[in-house]
């Protein structure tokens, strides 16, 4: 009871740890989120369709890195934006929201996973993943930069991305086959497409831009460019553990 009084002042929030971080607090925070936040941030917190609230599942928050800072943002809002504070909420409710937000990124402690981070790192190099993926500034450009992939992807998602890369490809990584008016063809990653133009990175990592009117056709290639080499269960677990360890806070 005494503890509650101390934290209820709110002013102390700058320096304190989140006192409501148990499993039940996650659920209570989720309920708060569902009733107060989804109209801007979306039911799955990946951003609002109509109200443009930012994606809260990326593992990093633009306006704060600490729990206390997130508490302040939720309580006070962000001046000059549509983010208004939950001024009438109890401190406990706001802490529970912070706790819930912390669960959204999918980040886990890689040491708790069955695979070996070290073996995963070796497998990553043996499979030449760096040909397309950058990690800490080294590697290719034809796949997503994995330097902080552990912040936003949980182990199940990472495992699926390894074994079924074509299951869900984000629009940024769609591959397209572009046929010019003269019949020549170029394939590449769809970096940007708008009403009038298309921008791709081809297999040699060149940035190319086309006026759509100058093209005969643009087709999406549904197959991911990621190779699907058969992995043993152990290799997969090791790679998952290594990828889960790639976090923004330990570089």
């Amino acid at each position, binding site marked *: 009871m005494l503890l509650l009084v101390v934290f209820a002042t709110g002013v102390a929030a700058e320096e304190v740890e989140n006192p409501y971080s148990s499993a039940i607090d996650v659920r209570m925070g989720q309920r708060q989120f569902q009733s107060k936040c989804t109209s801007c941030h979306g039911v799955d917190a990946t951003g609002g369709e109509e109200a443009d609230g930012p994606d809260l599942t990326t593992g990093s928050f633009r306006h704060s890195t600490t729990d206390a800072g997130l508490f302040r943002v939720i309580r006070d809002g962000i001046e000059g934006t549509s983010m208004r504070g939950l001024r009438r909420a109890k401190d406990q409710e706001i802490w529970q929201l912070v706790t819930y937000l912390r669960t959204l990124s999918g980040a886990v402690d890689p040491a708790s996973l069955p695979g070996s981070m070290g073996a995963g790192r070796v497998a990553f190099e043996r499979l030449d993943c760096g040909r397309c993926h950058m990690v800490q500034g080294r590697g290719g450009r034809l796949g997503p930069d994995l330097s902080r992939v552990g912040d936003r992807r949980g182990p199940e998602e990472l495992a699926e991305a390894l074994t079924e890369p074509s299951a869900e490809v984000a629009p940024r990584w769609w591959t397209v086959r572009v046929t010019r008016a003269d019949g020549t063809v170029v394939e590449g990653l769809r970096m940007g497409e708008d*009403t009038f133009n298309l921008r791709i990175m081809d297999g040699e990592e060149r940035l190319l831009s086309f006026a759509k009117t100058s093209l005969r056709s643009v087709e999406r290639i549904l197959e991911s460019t990621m190779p699907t080499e058969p992995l043993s269960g152990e290799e997969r677990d090791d790679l998952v553990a290594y990828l889960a360890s790639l976090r923004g806070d330990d570089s």
Partner: protein
Amino acid sequence: MRGLGWGGMILPLVVAQASPGQEPAADGMPVLSPVTWERLLNSDDEPHNWLMYHGALDGQRFSRLDQINRENVGRLELKWAHQIRQLDRNQTTPLVVDGVMFITESPSNVTAVDAATGRAYWRYEHPLPDGIRLCCGRNNRGVAILGETLYMSTNDAHLVAIDARSGSLLWDTEVADHTKGYSKTAAPLVVGDTVVTGIAGGEFGIRGFIDGYDAATGERRWRTYTVPGPGEPGNETWAGDSWRTGGAPTWLTGVYDPELDLIYWGAGNPAPDWNGDVRLGDNLYSSSVLALDRETGKIVWHFQFTPHDVWDWDAIQVPVLADVELNGELRKAMLWANRNAFYYLLDRGSGQFLFGEPFALQTWANGLDEDGRPILRENVFPTTEGTRVAPIAGGATNWWSPAYSPRTGFLYVNSFDAEGIYYQRDDEYEEGSIFLGGGHRMPLAADHYKSAIRAIEATTGEIRWEFPITPRTRSGVLATAGGLVWSASVDGYFFALDEETGEPLWRMSLGAAPHASPMSYAVGGEQRIVVAMGNVVFVFGLAEE
């Protein structure tokens, strides 16, 4: 006066001198003079001005200026831009009156600038209290004018009157209590000497209404609730006490027909948005259009597009009034492309449903019956597990203005063919708090779906052409007598299409998404095209040859 027939020539001063109620200054530039009700009724006679949110009382968003046309639109260039200080959505449609432009800014400000140069005369900043409840951003879409007074909605649910020459506050009326979830974002509509205005807050379980205020004093003359109370017709369409928190907000500017002397206004979603079980019944007058008597605000007729709406499909679109020939008969019609993906043609005298056809992807109804009521498909209501239905909650279209061109008989509508997953949930109503009863998301990124500007033939509902947009649009549409249709896309393009074919004739990448509808005016005899994108108001005109 339809079409000034400038034929592409620049005739300085002719228009300014021809317009009523004003004397040009010594250098020939127009001088702000009182905007009488007569001027508003006859706004077609002064197409160089944009005297109200929709341009005219009929809601057509059609400019009779034809100096910029299909032949010369390639010569369009930026003339000036106005940067809005607050970073937020920029939903403004500026007014232009005799060479002065009035631009509303987020959250509840308005500034007057010289329409020739964009340089400021004054700015009014409305002080806002903390803790305003807004579902969807600190928006303001525009002002209305009568005489020399501007009327503006504010986010704290006030209606303010501002002197058009100085920016001084003349009166400030609280329309509703903002702490209970009420807010205001739309431009008011002047009808006679009454300022007609709506309310927002459908996501907070408010009880919606449309109000009429004395333009001189700010005193309220009438209020018409869009959720009928006990004893009023329609109250029986709300189970139990659910009418008390029934929503049906009125957050977009309506229109007026002087001959029939009727005001038309759309009403939004019932509350809570996605849980219909707590408000069984049709939920009148949510997701409906209302025809109101000008003097009393009494409801003359209503038409409900989406009875018992459980998808958030507000009938918050512009009622477009046009006289069209249907089966050899001239009809005083209302054209309505609804958020629910159906295009409707109504008789605006009686409210009679004439026909309705889908104009975008929809999977919720097997068409409309002879009264215009949707024939629901099975398994389309939100559930706890989620139900997949097209269109999305944001709609096949939304509040962004369509445009109707009397030259082509087409209604130009921005449209989106996408599906959403709708969730139902139990929510307790708490005064002033979000009250949704569920949630909504799109299962896939917008890139997977199709968006387009569509030309709907008003009398048949046929799509005569479409201009596909990648990835989608959140902009209104303007049609001009130069044969052009203007709109914008979230990828940051502003563009002009051929009114007959949809062929793109001009475009410019402005680098930020639109949340507004374009308009047109002229100053010094030169036509301008205006669009608000990002936090900027851009003004285009022809380059000298």
